[in-house]
């Protein structure tokens, strides 16, 4: 089995009007291995996978695909699935209102005399779920299980189609550590059963841990293929390949200049918006100094976002009690406009659905949170808008041909820069950044870190919410840990380590 090739893609070139997304990309996947594809956002990883899975049909690209020794020409996803290639997208393709079993067999329902054989569906679902280590009732609706389990359902669905090659696009992006680890273990399990995997991921530690070989794609070209064991690959080596240069440090140098405490939240208690008795913030206390970068650490669902958004003009949950002090004075922020007025800014963790109007262009997005500033006599001054957008484009080094471009066209990192410029234009005193680098590639991350530090050195307070502990450790001057809606700890930069944070993030104060 070793070194037996299951898939070979030769000289794949794919063009879009005006853009060459892939040029002459080749990749070889051995049977029974986990093959990671790394590259910055926009490098062409997903496009390559779309070619492979038949989403871009044969004829749409040039080059050839050899799967299990035969040249294949997929017309659509069905034909690639028939051959045994299944792709699991980052945005899970499950239907929330249908059950686990219904989802697994959707489009593939076993029938008897033309009627769906539910006994068989449920029986096979149980078998498949056992294979992926999921114990749920097959009739449970998808919307009632967590993201981690949903991911497993996707894999079970793939297994039901007798998959030979499984493609996972950012499989752990939305998962917490435990679920991620479970998924990675499952992938190793599949590998030992002879199922090959291609995984696209930004999480280099996971790749290092699990992948057998790594193909690096940069600017639509395949740069190199590394064999983890033979070549002794580590994270820095991968980064070097991805960005074409080595980053001496993953965080820019920064010396904090801390001022006085100017923002303080006391006894902040917020109820869940739809479940009456549940609290998403339980008497939380925290403060921010001028020039300080404060980290909020917590697992997915711990209530970090909920806390931040409830502080930001009560834009989430049912406010119960609590006080906010700005510069020592108590303020009441009942709405987002009030919060913005008071000098708060909140950059959401979910750019696409909460942060950006994807129909809009860069320049009007940039000014959209502070239109008043460029409005004279009722008229929005478009020259001013253009000028301001240009200014931010230059100072944040947003990669775009022009600020007239639509934000939908930008890569994740550049979209985030536009969102940041939108909030910087409101001239806030406190910026709350929720997962500021999610889905952003290494090079752009470094730049975003630089922007955050620059804001801090200008005397602004910054709160960074992140699931990536190294990011928090590298960036923050002080870190709060949150567990089940309560702040369980406060650690200074010097005392913080992944272990100490993890401990506080997973156990409540009393238990610890």
């Amino acid at each position, binding site marked *: 089995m070793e070194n037996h090739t299951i898939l070979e893609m030769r000289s794949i070139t794919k063009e879009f009007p005006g853009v060459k997304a892939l040029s002459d990309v080749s990749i070889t996947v051995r049977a029974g291995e986990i093959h990671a594809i790394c590259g910055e956002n926009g490098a062409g990883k997903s496009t390559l996978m779309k070619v492979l899975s038949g989403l871009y049909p044969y004829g749409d690209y040039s080059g050839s695909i050899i799967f299990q020794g035969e040249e294949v020409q997929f017309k659509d996803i069905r034909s690639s699935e028939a051959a045994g290639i299944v792709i699991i997208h980052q945005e899970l393709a499950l239907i929330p209102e249908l059950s686990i079993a219904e989802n697994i067999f959707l489009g593939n329902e076993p029938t008897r005399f033309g009627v769906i054989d539910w006994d068989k569906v449920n029986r096979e679902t149980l078998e498949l779920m056992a294979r992926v280590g999921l114990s749920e009732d097959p009739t449970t609706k998808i919307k009632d299980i967590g993201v981690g389990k949903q991911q497993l359902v996707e894999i079970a669905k793939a297994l039901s189609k007798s998959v030979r090659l499984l493609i996972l696009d*950012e499989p752990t992006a*939305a998962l917490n550590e435990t679920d991620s680890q479970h998924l990675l273990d499952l992938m190793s399990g599949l590998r030992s059963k002879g199922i090959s995997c291609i995984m696209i991921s930004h999480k280099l530690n996971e790749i290092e841990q699990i992948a057998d070989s790594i193909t690096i794609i940069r600017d639509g070209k395949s740069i190199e293929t590394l064999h983890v064991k033979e070549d002794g690959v580590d994270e820095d080596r991968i980064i070097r390949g991805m960005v074409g240069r080595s980053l001496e440090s993953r965080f820019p140098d920064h010396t904090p200049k801390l001022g006085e405490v100017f923002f303080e939240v006391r006894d902040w208690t917020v109820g869940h918006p739809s479940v009456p008795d549940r609290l998403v913030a339980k008497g939380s206390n925290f403060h921010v100094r001028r020039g300080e970068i404060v980290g909020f650490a917590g697992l997915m*669902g711990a209530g970090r976002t909920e806390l931040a958004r409830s502080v930001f003009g009560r834009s989430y949950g049912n406010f119960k009690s609590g006080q906010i002090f700005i510069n020592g004075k108590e303020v009441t922020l009942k709405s987002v*406009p009030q919060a913005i007025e008071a000098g708060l800014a909140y950059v959401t963790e979910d750019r696409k659905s*909460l*942060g950006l109007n*994807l*129909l809009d262009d860069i320049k009007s997005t940039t000014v959209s949170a502070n239109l008043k500033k460029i409005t004279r006599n009722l008229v929005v001054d478009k020259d001013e808008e253009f000028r301001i957008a240009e200014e931010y484009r230059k100072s944040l080094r947003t990669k775009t041909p022009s600020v007239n471009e*639509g934000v939908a066209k930008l*890569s994740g990192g550049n979209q985030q820069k536009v969102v940041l410029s939108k909030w910087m234009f409101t001239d806030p005193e406190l910026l709350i950044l929720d997962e500021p680098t999610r889905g952003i590639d290494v090079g752009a991350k470094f730049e975003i870190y630089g922007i955050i530090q620059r804001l801090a050195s200008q005397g602004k307070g910054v709160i960074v919410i992140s699931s990536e502990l190294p990011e928090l450790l590298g960036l923050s001057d002080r870190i709060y840990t949150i567990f089940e809606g309560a702040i369980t700890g406060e650690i200074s930069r010097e005392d913080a380590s992944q272990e100490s944070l993890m401990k506080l993030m997973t156990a409540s104060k009393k238990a610890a």
Partner: protein
Amino acid sequence: MNSIKKIFGGDTRQFGMIFALIALVIFFQWQTGGKTLTSGNMMNLFNGNSYILILAIGMVLVIIAGHIDLSVGSVAAFAGIVVAIAMRDWGLPWFGGILVGLLLGAVIGAWQGFWVAYVGIPAFIVTLAGMLLFRGANQFVGKSNTVPVPEPFQYIGSGYLPEVGPVTGYNNLTVLLGLLLVAFVIYSELRSRKRLARVGAEVPEMWVSLVKVGLISAAILYATYLFATGRPGTSFPVPGLILAALVVIFGFISNKTIAGRHVYAVGGNRHAAELSGVQSKKVNFMVMMNMSILAALAGMIFVGRSTASGPFDGVGWELDAIAAVFIGGAAVTGGVGTVIGSIIGGLVMAVLNNGLQLLGIGADMTQIIKGLVLLVAVAFDVYNKTQGKPSITGLLTRNFGNRSKPDQPSEVRSPDSEQAISTKEVISKS
């Protein structure tokens, strides 16, 4: 092709619908043996469609905000009958009638806006209810009878600019209006050149501007000529004047003011807008209210034109208005559309109607053709979008206003877009 591009700026596709409109006019002019571009017919066209076009102005804002309004025909009819009765039975003067009508529109709009914005019921349902409700209210108040309106009130629906000043053989006010418009076209072209130069963008060559201004001015002057030389007593119609004023006002609001921006923002992504400090409830309330006010106005103009208010006024108007908006390049999902686009979409429908009528084609065939035109126009748009090509009906943009959708060849954007399902899912759903 290149020079056409230069003249009209941006992409020719933005002008697809204008070209379609011009082509239609020319086609009918040829087919009807010159009966299309006559004074009388042009006035008919304006008089007979101005109320639909006024509805389209309100409707495009509603649709940009991500809603729809099915009640406009019924609201128009209800406002019409109330105004007619108010003037007949309470002896209100014509301006009092107009005031009552607009006020009633505002009240109805507030009612619908309340349900849509603050209770959160989809506008489709609220206005479907409104469609029944206000149709019934019209027939209840008017006892299903026709109520005539006084002569002065008819002026807003069928009046013309008066004759003033020296006898020139032309209608002086119409000529003046035309000349002012030409002056404005020249002025704004000069201004835009200056602006481009100031911002440091590329300024088109002089001949491009000249040809552009020349063509537009010629069209305006020709229209002026048509309207100013009609049979005695006719000139540019009053409903057309009201429409023009509304186009200018709402074009300005949608394009240049914070309120306008907020409508696009809410339609484009409500959650993002809210987190940027936009009060989306207020925006939704206002667009629904505005629509009903304009519907009331349209109803009054129609009543003025037909000299009486009846129980079946305004039946089917909502569909004409909605069709105009979608032909004009708006998106069903909201966030996209322009006032000018909708007017042109409405004019395409109007010219079709009128031309087919002149050709003696029956109402049956006319409806079939109109239905196909709507379908083809939008299908073309959708097809182009899925092909990653720019949209054809996303017309009329940067030159008339910056509110077009940015082209979205979806495949070209970063393929590694991240959209994780996590707490935010929970938050955005709650």
